[in-house]
Structures are given as C-alpha cells and as structure tokens.
C-alpha cells in the first residue's frame, strides 16, 4: 500500500510540472518553425531509438526514413537499435541510454504508474494487430470459448489480463509463449497469442491453418508500437522530437509506396527474415497503420479518448491502482500538422 503510492504521488506531481513545461515549450517553438527542414548550421543531434523486436515490417517507417535520409534532412543522426525477446526498451529510454523507444500504450501507462516519466508522441498502429489464434475449425466464436483450453501467452501481458477479467477465463490454462509454435500446433484445441500480421503467415506456410480473433474486438484497444520518449528529452529537444516524428511519418508514407525498396533494407538488417513474410505483414498491417483516425489525421495520430478508455480499462482490471491523467502520458503536439 501506502508506501509505494506515496512515492508515486511524489514522482507524479513533479513530472506533471515537467510535462507542462515541456509541452508549452514545444507548442511555442512549433509555432515559430512552420515546416520540418529546420534552420541548420548546427551539428546533427545523435538520437537512438530502441525497437521492441528485431527489425521487421512494423518498423518499416523508421527504416524508410533512415534509408531515404529523412532524418538526416532533419539534422538528426538516428541510430535504430533492434530489441530482442526480453529486451526492455522502457528502461533504456528511462535511463537516457536511448532517446526513443517502441512500446504498447498499456506499457506506457504502467510505466507511468511506476513513476517513469515517459510520453508517447506517435503511434504506429491505430489498432493493435494483437490477436488470439487457434486451429481452423475449432469451435471458438468468442473469447469465452478459450475457457478449458491451453493458451500460449507471454506472461504479464495487460491484454490477457483484460480478456481474463472480462470473459472470466478462469478455466484457461496459461502456458508460456516463447516465440515457438510447436506446442500450439501439437495441441489442436489450444490457442496462442499472435500478431495477425505475423504468426499466421508462418503457420500457413507450414500447412497449419489457423483463424484469429483480434484482441481489439474485445473492446480492449491500446495503441500499439507507440513511439515514446522522456519528458526530459521533450524539454531539452522539443524541435528535434518534432522533427523526428515528422521524418518518421514521412518514412511510413514512403514505405507504403515503395514496399520492395524498404523490405530490401529490412532484410539487410534482419537477414534471417523472409521476404514473403515481410510482404504478408506489410499488406496485413496497412489498415492498422493508415486506417482509422490515421486516414484522416495522418500516421501516428492518437486521441485522448482512446487513451482515456484504455486507462480506465486498466484501472478496472487492477493493473493501474488509480487513474492517471492521460495527458501526461501522451501528446500529439509533436505530430506534423496535417
């Protein structure tokens, strides 16, 4: 109880101040400089972004921006560092070893609860491609039908807690998800976590037919693969943050039209990846990236309402102990005006 919440309060209030300062600063600057290619003469700023996985299609925009020199044009010297199965990008960004990171919206909120001053500045996916997959033909119509089945799930994921809570999945047997699917395949009745833009492809390629249920259909709709940074970075480098987001968005738009070129680049940094899988993923994820609000407001767009809903859902299932002002957690101030 009280000990840790004290700590949180303390942290929260001070950081709240920071955010305010940061956002005011950035808004003033953004009015000053209209378009991205800022006045140069300065040395380019070194920034590093840590991914949530090895380079793949969900990072296509970043690599496109890098490859096409959009970052360089913005006077940024960007290093894209791939993550790994258990790499915690949040701690790296929080410690200042990296400037930007990729994580899901619920993780950002949880980080906030732990007093980590992160701010989401753009999202990759409007709707998370996170899904539950199961063998084709299994009588699974809804999430409730997961009861009584083995579910391969990465431990500690918020969406799973939400599903458990909402659909009362007390009879589902949670098994560790390790990135392997052999056990899932072996057990006809089981289900497994997946990205609709990823796993199903690999399985079908091996002749295993699966169906998926998008987690978002449960009403749990976090933004996914959110680009975040720290309050401190926003305060110190508001313009650069803005430039970075702008270049990234530009990268995404470039990626949409030049898929093969970007995939060549992705395969260069992630040589073990299969071209076909990237292609499948790119096609599948398009809607998640460019659809919904993004169709109108551009790639990366986020709304307070969605954040708020998510926050309330997390409070409801107990992953957040108390409500958080979502405006301290995300901002769209750094997105290019469209």
């Amino acid at each position, binding site marked *: *109880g009280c*000990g*840790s919440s004290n*700590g949180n309060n303390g*942290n929260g209030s001070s950081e709240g101040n920071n955010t305010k300062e940061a956002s005011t600063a950035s808004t003033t600057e953004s009015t000053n400089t209209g378009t991205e290619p800022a006045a140069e003469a300065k040395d380019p700023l070194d920034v590093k972004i840590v991914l949530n996985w090895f380079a793949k299609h969900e990072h296509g925009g970043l690599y496109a921006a890098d490859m096409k020199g959009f970052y360089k044009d913005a006077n940024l010297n960007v290093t894209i560092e791939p993550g790994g199965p*258990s790499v*915690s990008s*949040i*701690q790296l960004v*929080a*410690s200042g070893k990296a400037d930007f990171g990729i994580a899901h919206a619920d*993780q950002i909120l*949880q*980080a906030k609860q*732990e*007093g*980590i001053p992160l701010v989401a500045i753009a999202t990759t996916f409007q709707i998370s491609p996170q899904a539950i997959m199961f063998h084709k033909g299994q009588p699974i119509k809804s999430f409730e039908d997961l009861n009584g089945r*083995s579910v391969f*799930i*990465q*431990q*500690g*994921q918020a969406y799973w807690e939400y599903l458990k809570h909402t659909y009362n999945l007390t009879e589902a*047997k*949670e*098994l*560790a998800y*390790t*990135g*392997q699917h*052999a*056990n899932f395949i*072996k057990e006809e009745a089981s289900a497994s976590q997946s990205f609709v833009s990823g796993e199903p492809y690999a399985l079908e390629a091996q002749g295993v037919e699966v169906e998926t249920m998008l987690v978002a259909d449960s009403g749990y709709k976090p933004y996914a693969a959110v680009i975040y940074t720290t309050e401190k970075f926003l305060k110190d480098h508001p313009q650069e943050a803005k430039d970075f987001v702008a270049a990234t968005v530009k990268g995404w738009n470039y990626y949409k039209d030049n898929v093969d070129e970007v995939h060549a680049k992705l395969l260069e940094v992630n040589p073990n990846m299969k071209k076909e899988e990237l292609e499948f993923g790119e096609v599948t994820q398009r809607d998640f990236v460019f659809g919904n609000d993004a169709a109108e407001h551009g790639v990366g767009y986020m709304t307070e309402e969605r954040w708020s809903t998510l926050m309330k859902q997390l409070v409801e299932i107990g*992953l957040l102990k108390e409500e958080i002002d979502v405006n301290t957690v995300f901002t769209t101030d750094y997105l290019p005006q469209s």
Partner: protein
Amino acid sequence: MKNNVQPSAAGHAYASSKSTTDSGKPVIAQRNSAFKGWGVKILPPLIAFVVFIGGWELIVKLLGTPAYIFPKPSDIVRAAAENFNNLMVSVWTTIVEAVLGFLLSIVLGIGGAILLASNRYIEKAIYPYAVILQTIPIVAIAPIIVIWFGAGTNAIVIISFLIGFFPMLSNTLIGLHSTDTNMLNLFTLYNASPLQTMWRLRIPAALPYIVAGLKISCTLAVVGAIVGEYVAGIGGGKGGLGYAITIAASQLQTAFLFAAGLSASVLGIGLFLIVNYLSSLLLSSWHESEMKK
C-alpha cells in the same frame, strides 16, 4: 673443523628434570582462537553485508538513480513486503522445481559419469552428446520437452536438470579419472571387479570433485528452474519466481523484480549452504580442503 665438539652437560639425568613454567598459556591461546573462529564465521560476512547493502542504498540515493532503473535495498524490501504472500508462493514453487532438478542432476550426472568412466569406448562415444545437452539452447528444445514431459512442473524440472547436469557429470568424470595409479594397482592386484574398483576406490577418490560439481550444480539448478518457468511455465496463481519476474518486468515494477531476483539468489545461497554443509560431512574424514576449516 668440528673434531672436538664434546657435549656433556646434557646427560642421562637430563631427561627427567622438570621446570615449572606456566602451562596455562597455550590453553589461553586456544580459547582465543575459538573466539576467533566464531569471528571468522560470522563477523566478516556480517560486515560485508552491511557494507554491501549500506553502500548500495547510499550510492543509489546519492546518484539519485530512480527506483525503476536501479532500486535501493529499501525499495526492494518494501516491494517484497507488499507482495509477501505472492512472493512466498513463487519462492516455494521454485524451490520445489530447483530441488527436483538438482536431485535429477545429481543422480544422472553421477550415474552418467560412472557409466562413462567404466568404459572408455562408451566415454569417447557418448561424452560429446553430454556437451550437446549442455550447450543446445533451451529455447530451441523447450517445445519438445513440453511435448514429451508436459508443460509446467515436469518441463521446468527437466530444464533445471538440463542446466545443472553437465557440471555434475564433467566434474565427477574428471574425479573418477584422477584416481591414484598406485591405488588402482592395489585393486588390480586383488582382482577387484570393475564394480568394486568403482565403488570402493574411484568414487570415494572422486568425492572432492563430485562435491565441487554439487556446488556449481545446485546454483545452476535454481537458474534452470527460473529459465524453465520462462520457456515452459504455466502462468497464474502457482507461478514460480520466473513467472513473478516476467510479470514484474512487464509491469515495470523494478523493485519487485529485484525482490524476486534476490529471492532466487537467496534460494541459491540456501541450497549452496546445505550442499556445503553436507560436503564437509562427506569429506571431513580425508580431504585437505575441508580439513582446514
């Protein structure tokens, strides 16, 4: 030249002459060293503990490193206290898995080494596969383990065993091969069967190596149990420390993560101390390394 040295004072009578010095002195010296023995046992670890924990608390405080990056001992204790019941359930689960894995390592490690040592053809043929067993990445074979043994405790115990097995095997094998040649000759001479030689000579002679293997293996069994929970665990209420750590990590509760991590360490140290105690009992009758304590 010493041709005229003629000692005389020390004659026959000498041997029975007595002087009257205080014979209590050495006894005092002994009492002193008994006190010292206590000091050696308790004091240095205590001082080190205080310095370590105190230093950690102080440095992290002074540097102002936030708890979510590197928690202070006080943060960790607080986090542990808050989730004490959960933590204890996790610890207990992991203890059971690690101990079972460790016992498997002992039985199969020593048994395997005895098998290998009893025939050099078998050794040459099979030993490489022991190395494979050790080095093949657990993640790669975790699914097969789950398929063969079932997820949860079974698979976790197997994984804990896989990680602790090789040190046991390797050390025991080296021990079995370092029997003194003269003693082997003795057994050969008395037409001892290979079984007798193994049981009465080679195994006792290998004990120091076996014990060294135990000390490594018991800590690795804990590591293995946690890794096992990662790759083959069952989530939910009965998850072990590996599960607790994953949850804490994904929820960014660094202090509790450390609490769980250090619980694993304490578990490891506990197992280690038990092994240490048993080994000193085992070896006390003959081995130098235990004699001096």
